[in-house]
């Protein structure tokens, strides 16, 4: 007897996936907003859903925003997200010489095939990695999480000191509340509302949505962008699709590989994919003049990065980027602990996620084919409408998450603080990643020491921990050298 309960659950989740994709493509297309604001807006809604539905909805935002960024890059000549910037190099010339729809077609096919490639790698590798990860000790997990933070601090900003401060602030925020090992109240200032730690939704909304709205308020609120939404047919012939198979494959491979690395993300992967596709192409000179491979490769990389980024998170429980850290928030809200134990103890849930992830990519293709013109027209909405709407919906979401006005005020206060930090060059993405990793880092560090009866050599006792330690040391040294070289150049 064939079990169809699986398909039934997937069908139940389709409306959430559709909502996530719509929000993702919409916010990805709007320059300056991007996927994190989209994920932030939908995070509070996840309280009223089942775990798989909530997580798939947020993953759909992530997937959708990767494609959405290309819409404004091609139609408006302004990338909606940083990772869509390389798409402009060939997308804009093709839009001018052929049609915007043709360029968007290559972008959509590249994104879909990249997303499916990322999903395939995730499905094939997550379980073996999780099985191997069961052998990791607390000391190993501590060093792995620490390596993620060190990499993020080194790569996230030009200013290393500010990057480190953002990480430290996130870690400090993660220690607020009752200490699980001793029952002591820490850094709560006697406020009962902070005994469970700061409300995650409140923190995310403050850091990303409110600070973005405040940033919009000092810009051009009434600017109406002009678009030419003619010739938006995104269909491609089989010959055209096969013409970019090599670039798509290169982009997908680069995307997955960079997605796995903590702190690297889609922006780097899309540029690397563009460069790799150009280098390995027989028509190198055509790049920059509307070459289809120059659109398909970076877009495939963007979307395959999602599968790559999910790999260490699902298999090891360690998020490697701000977007995945916020999605980790949905796991925390539903009491699901990602990592090797999840794979072993809850295979049905993992299967739902995997199948849902594939369905998300397919739905993105359908939505892209049907609604690209609508999303392109949405680019004309001025910020004077968007900013108050984002504020109202995000703050309502904070209230839904806890029913407590303290958290709504906290979101506003954090938004003001995050705005100041952003204009001064502090990477707030580091803050959220550190906040999510703080309990993992502290708990594994303290538990490792308790097991080793206070012997600090436990952190360099296995080949794995020595490797992690070595990698962290190499990254730190390289960063310090980079700063020293730059200081010398500035001086001379």
């Amino acid at each position, binding site marked *: 007897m064939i079990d169809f309960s699986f398909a039934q659950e997937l069908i139940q989740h389709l409306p959430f996936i559709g909502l996530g994709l719509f929000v993702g493509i919409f916010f990805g297309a709007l320059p300056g907003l991007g996927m994190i604001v989209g994920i932030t807006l939908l995070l509070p809604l996840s309280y009223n859903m089942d775990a798989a539905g909530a997580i798939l909805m947020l993953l759909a935002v992530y997937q959708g925003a990767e494609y959405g960024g290309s819409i404004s890059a091609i139609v408006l000549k302004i990338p909606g997200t940083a990772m869509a910037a390389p798409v402009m190099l060939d997308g804009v010339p093709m839009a001018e010489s052929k049609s915007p729809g043709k360029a968007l077609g290559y972008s959509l096919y590249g994104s879909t095939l990249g997303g499916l490639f990322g999903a395939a790698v995730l499905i094939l590798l997550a379980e073996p990695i999780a099985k191997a990860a069961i052998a990791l000790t607390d000391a190993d997990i501590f060093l792995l999480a620490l390596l993620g933070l060190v990499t993020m601090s080194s790569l996230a900003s030009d200013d290393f000191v500010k990057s480190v*401060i953002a990480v430290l602030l996130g870690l400090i925020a993660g220690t607020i509340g009752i200490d699980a090992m001793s029952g*002591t109240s820490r850094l709560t200032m006697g406020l009962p509302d902070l005994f469970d730690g700061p409300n995650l939704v409140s923190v995310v909304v403050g850091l990303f949505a409110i600070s973005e709205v*405040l940033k919009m*308020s000092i810009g051009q609120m009434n600017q109406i962008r002009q678009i030419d939404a003619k010739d938006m047919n995104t269909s491609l012939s089989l010959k055209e699709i096969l013409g970019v198979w090599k670039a798509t494959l290169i982009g997908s491979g680069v995307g997955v590989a960079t997605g796995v690395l903590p702190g690297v993300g889609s922006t780097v992967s899309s540029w690397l994919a563009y460069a790799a596709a150009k280098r390995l192409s027989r028509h190198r000179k055509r790049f920059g003049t509307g070459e289809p491979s120059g659109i398909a490769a970076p877009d495939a990389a963007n979307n395959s990065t999602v599968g790559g980024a999910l790999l260490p998170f699902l298999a090891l429980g360690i998020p490697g980027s701000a977007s995945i850290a916020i999605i980790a928030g949905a796991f925390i809200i539903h009491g699901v602990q990602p990592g090797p134990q999840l794979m072993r103890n809850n295979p049905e849930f993992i299967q739902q996620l995997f199948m849902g992830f594939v369905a998300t990519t397919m739905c993105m293709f359908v939505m892209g084919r049907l609604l690209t013109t609508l999303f392109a027209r949405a680019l004309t909405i001025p910020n004077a409408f968007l900013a*108050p709407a984002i504020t109202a919906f995000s*703050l309502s979401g904070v209230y839904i998450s806890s029913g407590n006005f303290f958290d709504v005020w906290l979101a*506003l206060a954090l938004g003001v603080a995050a705005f*100041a930090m952003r204009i001064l060059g502090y990477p707030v993405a580091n803050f959220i990643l550190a906040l999510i990793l703080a309990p993992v880092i502290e708990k594994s560090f303290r538990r490792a020491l*308790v097991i080793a009866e206070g012997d600090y050599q436990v952190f360099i006792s296995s080949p794995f921990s020595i490797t992690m330690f070595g990698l962290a040391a190499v990254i730190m040294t390289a960063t310090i050298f980079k700063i020293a070289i730059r200081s010398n150049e500035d001086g001379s």
Partner: protein
Amino acid sequence: MQKALDNLLFVAFGVLGSAIVVTAQEMPEGFFGDIGAGAFPAFLGFGLLTSSVIGLTRNTINSSSSFQFKRAQLCAWITMVLLISSFIATWQLTGRFLLSLTGFLLLAFTIYRTDRSPNNLVLNLLVSLCLTAGAYWLFTLTLGVQFD
């Protein structure tokens, strides 16, 4: 302006780091190899203090200003913070979410949309009402949240 703001923030973070180190001293010590509840926050507080001192020193020696806040931008920013604060306060004090939401949206649209012709004012009102209806549909009818 950036240098002054940078310095202000470094000092604020330095003070915060010191306060965390002091507070962490009062937390109970651990036993059987545990470092105790205060060790991790104390370490982080010390790290924050050290990073702030490094940042402040670097800023004093060498700093370049990359942005300037214009008076109009400052006014727009303060207006937005006040608007959001009054939305939350009205909602909290009256307990009327939908009414506060419509009021906030209408006021914000009217302030930030510089063209205040009668047609645009009507459009502002319509968009406010549509968004409020959308919020009611999403939060109350779909998710079952009772605000009032």
